């Protein structure tokens, strides 16, 4: 599933990042890589989200959030 479809308050694991090159690099430097847990803090209807990753809160637009493939983390 895509991060943009995430449910508020749930933690997901990053599977794949497929966004524009420049943004991929930026996300990488922020430590958003395969296997990293991402907590969805807030989400708007269209998929713009606020996530918490590695102790940092990030707001991501739909375009980026939908380019991040995630799976549900085992409880």
């Amino acid at each position, binding site marked *: 599933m895509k991060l943009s479809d995430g449910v508020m308050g749930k933690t997901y694991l990053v599977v794949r990042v497929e966004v524009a090159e420049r*943004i991929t*690099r930026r996300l990488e*430097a922020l430590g958003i890589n395969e296997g990293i847990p991402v907590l969805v803090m807030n989400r708007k209807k269209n998929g713009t989200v606020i996530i918490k990753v590695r102790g940092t809160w990030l*707001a*991501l*637009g739909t375009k*980026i959030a939908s380019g991040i493939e995630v799976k549900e983390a085992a409880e």
Partner: protein
Amino acid sequence: MSEQVITVGFVGNPNCGKTTLFNAYTGANLKVANWPGVTVERMEGAAYYKGHKLRLIDLPGIYSLTSYSIEERVARKCIMEEEIDVIVNIVDASSLERNLYLTMQLLEFRKPVVLALNMMDIVQERGMEIDTHRLPEMLGGIPVVPVSARKRMGLDVLLHAVVHHYEEGPHEKVVTYTKGIEAKLEKVEKALADRYGEVSNPRWVAIKLLEQDEEIGKLYPLDLPDVLDKSYEKRIINEKYAYIEEVVDECLFNRESAAASTEKADRYLTHRIFGIPIFLGILAVVFFLTFTVGDFLKGYFEMGLEWFSGSLMNVLGGIGVSDWLISLVVDGIVAGVGGILTFLPNIVILFLALAFLEDSGYMARVAYVMNEVMGSVGLSGKAFLPMILGFGCTVPAIMASRGLENEKDRRRTMMVTPFMSCSARLPIYVLFAHIFFGKYAMIAAYSLYVIGVLVAILVAKIANKLYPLPEENALLIELPAYKMPNPHTVFIYVWEKVKDYLTKAGTVIFVVSIFLWFLLNYNLHGPAEDVSVSFGAYLGRILVPLLKPAGLGMWQIAVALLCGLSAKEVVVSSCAVLFAVSNINSSAGMAELGAALGAGGFGPVNAYAFLVFCLLYTPCAAAIGTIQRESHSWKFTVKQVLFQLALAWAAAVLVFQAGSLIFG
């Protein structure tokens, strides 16, 4: 005395306070140039510490040391090519985890690194603690110095560490990767040594080769297909972060409790439904403060100015200064510059409120909250703020576009912001609406604000259709934890903006005021007896045919509009001078001006076309200067001015022609 010069590179993430710290050392003693071959600014300065001369270089703000962006390549090259003796890594202590990622990479260079822990005050305000003894232990024994660039604390300690550490030489290895990676690194390092002899930082080069870094791959090609079989970049990043997690666990305390309150607040402030109304509510309060309290104080400023220009005239007259000089000083400089200064209370209050929102951490959320609304016209969520500020004054509004991440968004925002009706335009609306629209004056004035917003939206929409910006809805912004704003930080923020504003009043507006005064008081034969035979009047008459289709074919109107380029409110004072009306805001004065205009066939339709023109045409010289400074491009600036003039003209023509058809 040591004659040796130590070259120190300042490296850090964007917005970590790097440049502020750099400036604290170098002051105005700066050499600003571009890095060779690119348009990234390079700043260099000097500092002295106990007989050592230090050459300080401010490297571009970066998040990592890959070769994907110009900034990163520039920084990397500078450090790699032995130019830098000591790296000062400035770290925003309030977001230690993310900042340490760059630190980990810098440490791999095996050059002396000194860690400057900036923004410790914020860490304390948030109730967090950093163990500054354990931290250096975990970073290979490099010196860790808490500093405050803003409060100028720890500056000498940092230089001491730089000099000391320089003499001491490099530190030990910090991040040890998992066995697989380490084994590969060992093989690559060995191959490097075999093929290239002594490489100054073999481990770093080996890591980059494992990451399949393009530049390093070209510099040190190796034939090791079984070792360098694929990019290990992601694994290396993850392992660095794993180590950072260890560091943070050991050295940073109370992080969760600080986070909990922010997360609680964000449940409301960034709520998908309440978020927007809360933001609009906050805006309403900011506006209320700016315009009611600001205008209240502005009244006193105006009284002060009147008193000042009156007594200045008496004093100058008393000591026998010639009339032309008195006129230059009082009508030209004091009226022009002083008129701008009276807006100071509004500006100070506006920026106090903004500084409060910014420093509390709320401002970053606005981009998230407004993202969709702005995105629908192709603007970034962050562009909302500059546009709102535009109601106050275009100059700080354009300055606020600095907060946007990329140049294209920034320019698009600069393009639409001037259409937001600034407070300097209000006096024009009030005057003309009262003269021509009687009891509908308020509605007429209000309608102009609405037209301004509509034009801004329309322009943004059309621009987005013609030149769509890539990566639509590519919002990517870090949200800091909420905190109580720091009075000192707020003060600095406001002061910087006020200083900018005052500098402008003292330079651009000063010069323009003198120039306009000259235009209106002189002609080819020297001093003009009357405005109607001045340079300004000649110029105005040239413009009359052009303005005629817009119903503005009077030379006085043309001159007033021309003068309005120095500052919009000057349109009002120019009308007073041009039509020789003594007290233009009194009802007698208005009647007089109305009669004078009416005699030239200037009716309500002309007046509305005039107001629309005033709304849309180039705000003022200060705004032009600001657009140039913020865009770093004269070409862009000139284009904007021409666009604004053309749009204003077209809109005024439309209003006048349509209005004449309907009412004429």
